[in-house]
């Protein structure tokens, strides 16, 4: 398209083969080493370092010595962005839009769609999970690795006014105002992963309170998969002229009270546009083995005026109101013996884009291959095998 622009310096520079090949080679390097990095450091860290970064420090150590050095390397986001620009420029201006090139054009259009779609997914998608025991319901999904400090006022039996504060990016020393309640919380210490210690009898006058008998917490190393981390911290609550330091640990079953106010450290909640109840969980094992053959959950979905029962199982998720629920795994509660079903929950506005690009690119590939193959086959008639 726009043949006159083909020789424009900007087009030549941004639409060049050089950039394309360099980006592809860089992507090969990132993919290759990112895969090996996973073995020791886990998927999450490999993703953050190699693929979800613009630039990162590539550490190398001289074997047999303690000497380490690093050099900057472009991350996945940078490479893919440059590649996408290159693709767009090349597809619009460089590739000749004619019948012979139909296949090639479709391939590249499909790729551009895929890259844009992945950008949307990267910046806007959210994954969380829901775990339910048979018979229980919830209106929230839980974040895998993000935690919040939630505060609410207890009035008799009912809970009124909950406020939550996202802890994933806050560092110690931050002062948080909960203006609705006229109180502030000073984060004295917060550990991304911690271990609790209980003491009997309780240490008197330790200065802080906790509702689960935890006497102190210690910071421990962050786990490879962030959802295994159990944070904890010391929080100073200022309520009017009352001051109280709290020790809070991840997902304690009881909230810690200061006056009428309850405080709890829990996984960040994502409100669902419906209520979901697990009616029945069924699991079929391969006979005589411990290997699951199939498992499924029967759930009830209640929205404003709607109520329906749905079956969710492997490869058959539930899609509703922008949320997709997948049967992810199951467990048995060691104490009660109840069966727990876990759903992976995803919201992703760009979900359908890869499907479109699969069809477009796939078509382009097949067309191009056939167009390239046909002239070669015709030569058989002219020659005889010697």
């Amino acid at each position: 398209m726009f043949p006159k622009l083909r020789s424009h310096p900007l087009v030549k520079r941004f639409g060049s083969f050089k950039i394309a090949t360099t980006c592809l080679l860089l992507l090969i390097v990132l993919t290759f080493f990112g895969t090996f990095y996973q073995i020791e450091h886990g998927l999450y860290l490999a993703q953050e370092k190699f693929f979800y970064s613009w630039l990162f420090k590539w550490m190398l150590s001289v074997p047999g010595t303690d000497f380490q050095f690093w050099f900057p390397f472009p991350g996945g986001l940078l490479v893919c962005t440059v590649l996408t620009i290159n693709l767009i420029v090349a597809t619009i201006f460089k590739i000749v839009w004619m019948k012979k090139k139909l296949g090639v054009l479709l391939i590249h259009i499909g790729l551009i769609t895929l890259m844009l779609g992945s950008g949307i997914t990267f910046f806007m998608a959210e994954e969380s999970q829901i775990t339910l025991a048979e018979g229980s319901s919830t209106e929230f999904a839980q974040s895998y690795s993000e935690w919040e400090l939630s505060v609410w006022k207890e009035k008799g039996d009912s809970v009124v006014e909950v406020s939550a504060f996202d802890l994933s990016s806050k560092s110690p020393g931050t002062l948080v105002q909960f203006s609705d309640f006229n109180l502030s919380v000073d984060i004295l210490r917060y550990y991304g992963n911690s271990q609790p210690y209980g003491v009997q009898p309780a240490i008197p006058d330790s200065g802080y309170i906790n509702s689960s008998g935890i006497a102190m917490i210690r910071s421990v190393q962050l786990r490879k998969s962030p959802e295994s981390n159990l944070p904890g911290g010391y929080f100073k609550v200022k309520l009017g002229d009352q001051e109280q330091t709290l020790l809070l640990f991840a997902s304690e079953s009881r909230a810690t009270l200061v006056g009428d106010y309850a405080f709890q450290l829990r996984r960040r909640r994502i409100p669902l546009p419906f209520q979901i109840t697990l009616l029945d969980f069924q699991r079929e094992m391969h006979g005589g083995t411990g290997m699951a053959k199939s498992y499924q959950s029967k759930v009830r979905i209640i929205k404003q005026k709607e109520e329906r029962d749905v079956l969710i199982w492997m490869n058959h998720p539930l899609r509703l109101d922008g949320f997709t629920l997948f049967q992810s795994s199951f467990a048995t509660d060691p104490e009660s013996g109840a069966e727990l079903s876990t759903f992976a929950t995803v919201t992703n506005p760009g979900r359908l884009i890869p499907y479109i690009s699969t069809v477009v690119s796939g078509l382009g590939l097949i067309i191009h291959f056939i167009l390239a193959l046909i002239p070669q086959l015709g030569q058989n008639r002219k020659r005889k095998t010697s």
Partner: protein
Amino acid sequence: MKLFSLLPLLLSSFIYASLPVELNQLPIRDNGRIKPFESFASGKLLQFSGKSTAYSFPNGKRTKAMDAVEWMTHLLFKPSAIESLQVFQINDPQIASSIGLSPVEYRSYSYAQIDANRFRLQELAKQAMAIDEEDQSGFQRNLISLSNSIDLYERFTRSMEFMTPSTAFQFPNKELRAKLLLAPERTQFSYLEIYRKAGLLAGTLDSLIFKKEVNWTGLDSASYQVSRQLFEWTQINDLPIPEMIPYFHDDKWWWLSPWSIISNMLLHDQVINSEITWLSQIRQGFLDNNDSLLSNAATQLRESINKRASNPEYRPDLLKAESLYNRVDPFIRAQVLFGIALLLALGGTLWKPRFLQNLSTGAILLASLLTTFGIGIRMFINQRPPVTTLFETFLFVALFCALLGLAIRFWKAPDVGNLLASISALCLLLISNKYAAEGDTLKVLVAVLDSNFWLSTHVVTITLGYAGVCASGVVGHIWLIQRIIGSKKEKLDSTYKALLGTLGFGLVLSFIGTLLGGVWADQSWGRFWGWDPKENGALLIVLWCSVLYHAKLAGWLGKGGMALGSMIGIIMTMFAWFGINLLGVGLHSYGFTNGVATAFYSYLAIQSVIILIGWIWLRKIGERVFLPVKK
């Protein structure tokens, strides 16, 4: 036409069966799958010894001792006879020495040898099992596996003890003997015999409830002893294997071991009772070397089970098909044929090209037919699409490399086509043997793979992609050799075109396959792409082929460069294919095997050397690998 007379010869396998063949098709459930006894036997033997035949090593020389079925039958009914048969393969000499065995050349040990050092093995295994599975070393894993194998072996030896006369059931008390109607000349009886007669004691035992122990007669005490002995045996010896008697209960079919049948008191069912009787006749026939008793009992047992227990999960016709599959052993024979084809094709490049190449093509066609038959019958037995396990990917890729080779052969390059077909198919089938060594290649699938649609689309497509890229790499080698020896320009051109064609085929299918994989992942796990190692592997293939094409289009890569690049394509493919599984990481880590790692690294080394030498040599003869970058 001469070739076709070989067909029946090849298809009718000459297997020396020492036991009546009726035994082979008895159904047994193992690891969730109902299979014929012969598959069960060879699978277990493979698991212990790494081979599907039992060997002995007199004077350090390996000789065949017995086939798998005979070995398994011994294990069940006469384990003492095979105690010294060396069927436990311990590859790591460190493991052997750590439990007190002196390492031997052939690395196979008998049960008796290992049992002598049982305590040490148990201790070490206990220590190893205390460590988290993720942190266990290869040594510890193998140790645990050996310990488990020994345990399994022992459970099999005990599984039929209820039919063996034992000192636990001796009857010095004459009154009791009379009451139980026991044959006077015998001293020992089996649990089963006494269990069946236990009803005769019912009256006596009932009366004991109200009788004070001081008033018990000799008959009373003896009867009580017997009933207690029976009870204790059930408690101690109740073993859940082998699962061979089906029983319908609670809306589904259960496969129970003979012990479970007895301990669940199911012998009152007449049909099941006769099945247990036939089982004991099989045993008797085996011990007495009475082939007709054995074969009759086996046939009757099988027919009885077939008659009453055929259901969607147990189809006797599938077992028959599996038996046929075992007989024909299509992939081993195909390997032989591909090997012959390779020699013929190589010979055909030196002299009598037309004749030898035609012969080679014939062998390839036959081998491809066999491979197709093998894949097809596996699909029937499994009731699944053709590619569902790592093992099957090798079969499939071997077949399609052969087909690509045949396509090239009939297009215009018979030598290239024949060489491509025979080399790739042979190598891939040889690799597949390593994966067959796991034991059962027809295993059941984990839940996430349980989707016929995606198995037919994504897996098949990407496997075809592997075939294309591998094929192009092989053609790359052929081009390199032809270029070096100075073949005619025409020939070189058609080889180069074949390279581009197969590479294109590989790229198209790998690309589509990778995209389909993403779609499947979105359906299953909620995200199209997650930088999982297997996804990354597939991406690497697509990226590398794209780099090659773009570099060629830009005029930077000469023909030499494409040829060498296609060899790197094989490396990428191998890495994605099973290099990833060796890393043991990620959602796709369900394909472990020993011994593959060494093969993989050796291949890497050899291929790198070839590429290097190729590069240097091409430069020497003036064939540019890289072309100057135009401004």
